[in-house]
């Protein structure tokens, strides 16, 4: 397994303020890595350092085998970027914009193919300034794909999408993954991370508070809840071994000839894990 991105003890300070306080992670080539975290957690800072756009204060990083801070044009042609805020020429059409950016790369994807991928067919020849927010965002995604990159950085790529467009974008990202593209994605939508990411890291206040696959995050660390009523009393148990505990509970109840009223077994969703991890800080910064 080759490593596309490796980050060791990455730190970034803006003046006195340390926005990223020593984080470590790796992204295997061909995987989708999701970076989650509340506003101000340091996601954009981290991503822009990996894009070679910002300089780090300290730490070792490697993206596609090079240090982004010193990488050249050949390296740039292998990455694609969606910035957090849309950045488009308002007076060009999507088709023209894609053509302009295609010209910067040695082996671009065909413009029509990208228009198709991001679903801008109907608006391909309208001025960008007349597009809706979500349509502009799709063009941003298209511009990130046009160079046929090995690695793409997507900073909140689906913010402003309607549910249909979001699903379409997910499909696009899955397709890119199946073509072997490595993807680093930041998002506030947990279902998005759950749907797309092979690995997730939750960032809070510049440190990674939890990392792993979505399944590990929801299944591993937190416990399963079992809820039922016994003798009119509401009982909530947490267990790391739900199979055994359920068996004990139900067989005991059967032996006594009782019913476990309103029995409910549930695992926390990524959303709950996330809120548990970040809840106290959200809005506090």
């Amino acid at each position, binding site marked *: 397994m080759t490593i596309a991105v490796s980050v060791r003890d990455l730190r970034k300070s803006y003046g006195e303020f340390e926005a990223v306080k020593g984080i470590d992670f790796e992204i295997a080539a061909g995987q989708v890595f999701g970076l989650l975290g509340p506003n101000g957690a340091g996601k954009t800072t981290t991503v822009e350092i990996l*894009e070679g*756009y910002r300089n780090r204060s300290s730490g070792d990083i490697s993206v596609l085998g090079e240090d982004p801070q010193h990488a050249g*044009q*050949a390296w*740039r*042609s292998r*990455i694609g*970027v969606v*910035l957090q*805020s*849309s*950045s*488009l*020429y*308002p*007076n*060009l059409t999507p088709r*023209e914009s894609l053509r*302009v*950016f295609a*010209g*910067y*790369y040695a082996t671009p994807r065909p413009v029509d193919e990208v228009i198709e991928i991001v679903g801008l067919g109907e608006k391909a020849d309208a001025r960008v300034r007349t597009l809706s927010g979500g349509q502009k965002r799709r063009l941003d995604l298209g*511009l990130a794909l046009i*160079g046929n990159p090995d690695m793409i950085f997507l900073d909140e790529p689906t913010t402003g999408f309607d549910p249909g467009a979001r699903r379409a974008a997910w499909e696009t990202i899955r397709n890119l993954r199946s073509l072997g593209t490595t993807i680093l994605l930041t998002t506030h939508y947990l279902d998005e991370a759950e749907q797309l990411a092979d690995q997730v890291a939750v960032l809070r206040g510049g440190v990674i508070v939890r990392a792993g696959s979505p399944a590990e995050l929801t299944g591993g660390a937190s416990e399963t809840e079992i809820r039922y009523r016994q003798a009119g009393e509401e009982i909530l148990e947490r267990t790391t071994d739900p199979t055994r505990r359920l068996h004990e509970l139900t067989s005991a109840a059967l032996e006594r000839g009782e019913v476990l009223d309103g029995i409910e077994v549930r695992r926390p969703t990524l959303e709950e894990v996330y809120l548990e991890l970040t809840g106290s800080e959200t809005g506090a910064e």
Partner: protein
Amino acid sequence: MKLFVHQLRTEQLLFWRNREAAFFTFFLPVIFFLIFGAIYGDTDISSEHIKGSYFLEAGMIGYGVASTCFAGLGITLVVRRELGILKRVRTTPLTPLTYLSAVLGSIFIVFLFEAALIILIGRVLFGVPFPTQAFSVLVVLLIGAVCFAAMGLGISGFVRSAEGSSAAINAVYLPMAIISGTFFTPKGYPTFLKVIADALPLTHYTKVTRDVMVHGVHVWSDWKQLLVVLAWGIAGMLAALKLFRWQPREA
């Protein structure tokens, strides 16, 4: 080189596509030439010893360099920076040097075209003969474009918002254009205006343009004026080196 040509074509597309900006930076000098030419083109300007139209033709090229290379470029750069386009460009394989060269190259093309149009209109409508020192004229245009573009780069660093960029930059270049004697001769100015005019690069540039185009003087004979223009160009460049940013100010 291929990238440079590609970006140069992109810049031309972007320039002509933005109608309002093209009007202000490209057509306004031409329109002013027509209007003022109609008003005093046939009158002799005694203090300059030339006909109004001769005076005005060189003046409008001076006005053109300020509006195209200085104001037009400055506004474009601020708007692109605040829209995040400069930042986006930095994420592509296009180098900053190639990008900026293409931006400047494109502005120079626009200015050359504009100057040619003004000279042509002067010839056809106002009977101003074509300049005799063609090479000197070309050098003057090139020096003007480079120096005023450097000032445009510099001023873009001072302007914070895209919305305010036109207002802020127009507030600098319009009074400058008027004081510098592009429309009226500065010879009869009251002292305080004369002092200001003498400090402005456009006053000196307009004098060079007029000497070369109207009086057939060789460009290097006005080296003192050129030095002033160059000094301003260098000041603009230094400001640009210190203040130019690729990322939006307001993000």
